[in-house]
């Protein structure tokens, strides 16, 4: 995936401006000398102390599909899968038969027609969200909405260190990796050795293995292991059947003011986890987020023709009314514009009612010895 590639240095407007501190004169007498002093101060105020070497870094986008690249295949909304492009091989699904040679060398986002039917698929560049939709579920996965909320509430930023347990299908590992790339680290632990090795193979194939590593280990029983030194983790994400047994282990690895998150489907798990946080963590909050999807319908609304019958009045009045109505109707018809298309929305008929309760907490900052009494 693109986020895992190394950022390449390039110059930018700031580097090209070539701004430097100028040695200031020992005594300031003339306005020119004053200008030098003021300019130096302004430089520090605007750009900070390290104004030299402000080079930009960018990750070039992979535009074309090359052999062995991960491609997400879009057959229809909610029906996504993936392949690693291999020359001379074939991918088939209910939309038809698709030859890899047809799309290798083309742009990502291209529409590929089937060779033997009128069906088609789109080949997309993988992102964390598309991966979560297309990957093979080995376990229940953490969905993009929960992923985004977890990443945001763990306060993760590039180059952070985060621990995860268990790895499961690796959907969350990818989301965490994107947040801490390029030089951060995700240490992921999984107690099922088959899932652990499969996850590592996937990380390797998707090019994120230098950020995210999966280890076969039972965190609840053995703790988080030595890969991440104690007191250095910025965040811990727990997706375990018994998260409260890992609280103490998380506490050891976390920095002061580090964040912990537990993803538990059941409220009993959440209750026991919250109870285990007592004393060592503060700002405990539990939330639940659901995605409500909307359908957009377009078309012309059919207006009901209402014709009011006249029950009263003399024949004469009735006649007059009738005439007027006919006249009005005639005018109306002439004036009537073509029916306008209206865009309407309605909630999708079904939604995911529950995934998990997300509990967040911050580790207490230990009091310095001088502050204790």
């Amino acid at each position: 995936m693109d986020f895992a590639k190394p950022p390449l240095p390039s110059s930018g407007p700031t580097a090209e401006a070539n701004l430097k501190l100028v040695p200031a004169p020992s005594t300031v007498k003339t306005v020119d000398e004053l200008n030098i002093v003021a300019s130096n101060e302004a430089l520090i105020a605007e750009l900070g102390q390290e104004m030299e070497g402000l080079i930009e870094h960018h990750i070039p986008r992979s535009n074309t599909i090359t052999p062995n690249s991960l491609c997400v295949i879009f057959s229809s909304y909610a029906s996504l899968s993936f392949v690693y492009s291999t020359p001379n091989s074939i991918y088939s699904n209910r939309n038809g038969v698709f030859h890899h040679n047809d799309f290798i060398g083309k742009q990502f986002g291209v529409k590929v027609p089937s060779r033997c039917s009128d069906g088609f698929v789109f080949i997309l560049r993988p992102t964390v969200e598309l991966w979560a939709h297309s990957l093979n579920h080995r376990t229940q996965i953490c969905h993009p909405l929960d992923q985004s909320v977890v990443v945001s509430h763990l306060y993760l930023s590039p180059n952070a260190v985060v621990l995860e347990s268990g790895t499961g299908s690796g959907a969350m590992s990818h989301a965490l990796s994107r947040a801490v790339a390029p030089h951060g680290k995700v240490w992921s632990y999984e107690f099922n050795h088959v899932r652990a090795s499969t996850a590592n193979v996937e990380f390797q194939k998707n090019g994120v293995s230098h950020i995210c590593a999966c280890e076969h280990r039972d965190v609840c029983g053995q703790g988080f292991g030595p890969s991440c030194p104690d007191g250095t983790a910025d965040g811990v994400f727990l997706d375990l059947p018994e998260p409260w047994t890992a609280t103490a282990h998380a506490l050891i690895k976390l920095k002061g003011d580090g964040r912990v998150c537990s993803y538990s489907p059941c409220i009993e798990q959440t209750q026991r986890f919250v109870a285990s946080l007592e004393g060592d963590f503060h700002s405990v909050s539990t939330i639940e987020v659901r995605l409500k999807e909307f359908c957009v319908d377009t078309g012309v609304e059919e207006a009901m023709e209402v014709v009011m019958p006249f029950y009263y009045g003399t024949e004469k009045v009735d006649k007059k009314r009738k005439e007027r109505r006919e006249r009005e109707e005639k005018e109306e018809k002439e004036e009537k514009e073509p029916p306008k298309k209206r865009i309407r929305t309605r909630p999708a008929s079904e939604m995911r009612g529950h995934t998990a309760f997300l509990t967040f907490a911050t580790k207490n900052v230990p009091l310095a010895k001088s502050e204790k009494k």
Partner: protein
Amino acid sequence: METDASVSTQPSHSPSTPSPVVREGDICIVDFGETRYFLRACRAGKDNQIKLGQKGKVYTTGLINMPYGAVIEVKNSRIVRTEDDLITPLLNLEEKEEEETEKCDNRNLVDDNKSQKTTMDDINKLREEGKTGQDIVSQLVSNSTSFSGKTAFAQAKYIKRKLKKYLPRARVLRCTSATVCDLYFKKDAMRYMSLRPDSLAQILSYANVYAGAQVLTFDTISVVTASLVERMGGYGRILNVFSSQDPPHKEVLSKFNFDYKRLDVLKFVSAYEIFGEGAGREVKDLDACDDEKQKLKRQGWPVPLMEHTKEHLQNNFENDEKRHEFLFKRASRFIRKLCRPSRDESLSYLNKKSDSLIISTKFDPLPILFALLPFLAPSCPFVVFSEHIEPLAECFDKLKSEKLAIQLQLTETWNREIKVMPNITHPQMTMSATGGYILTGCKTSDQIIEVEKKGKLVGKGFGAMRSRAPKRKLETSKETSDGGGEKKK
């Protein structure tokens, strides 16, 4: 411009890890529970006194070097860290009759406002005596006739409420996208277009924002841009198209305490320069503008003083201090001008195509989306955020009918807070009803692939197959079986 040299190593450009303490000049959030403030930690000065609770005015000097997460209180007009680091300190209650077995409820409660025997005068007296908030609350508890009749939870709640009044304590929080957005949302949701923290989280995720990407945005909420800067961590580029007079977001950006390395990713692009009407005339003016930057560059650094500037300095300023101030402002202006991309540079960034597009604006998103979509690379995600659903429905419809995007999704999020306590876990009584609507999608490529169709078409729709379909002798790749499975909702 890209120098495809060696792969960058970490130390050359790794932004410093966030400081564990509040540095001088930094802004932090001070959380009193219901109310939260932004406070800037600075040395005592003329007008940086702030009012906190009922304790009168205090300087924020005490916040300097305060670790994030610490609990503070005001003591002798100074902000200090508490000794126990608890928002609700423990009380030394005199009577501790453990009658837990007896079930308490409110069957005997008479709500006549007479259960509290302590009067306001007593409290004022205690205050004058210099008693702490803890003592006052203990007094209140022992003088309340109804306290012992309450359940343990009700007692805890009572103490908490009283402590908040007599012993206001607050926690120092770091300004991150989640905390800042939460503060704004709770303070004035309408002003920030009902952008709830979970919506912001989704915008950043669905737009595939990562360190090193090029993100194109049109944002009038400011929090989105600031969060982008945070998420990019000093790598990549944010092209912020703006329509106002000056580059926006200054106030919100200042809350995050970014250093220049991080802020440098943010490039402002004036919508008028790039998309403005009467482009011919504008181009001419802007060429002149570019020339100005070139001229400035040629003059070298520090920019030498012109004769008329010198004269102005000599004649119109009383002393060197004022002159210094003038020159400082002048130099800052030049620095900003030199470090800002010129129009040509902005255009070249735009034409490189961006990795994602984010639109979060109070304006009609439809024309903005269609003006910026050509600058998004194919197979890249875009996110449009709005307070209202109708503008997004229009965008949805147009994108769909013009076949510009796939995987379109129009959503709203439902966010419920849950109070977790032993035996009385329940959702909060009030919850936020909306956090805004989000439209996401993925732009498709206009490249066309022609394949040789074999056989005659039989059947209809996707299921239609060619009659003489090639025999499935061709080896089916392993990946096919990998990716083919799992059709989920």
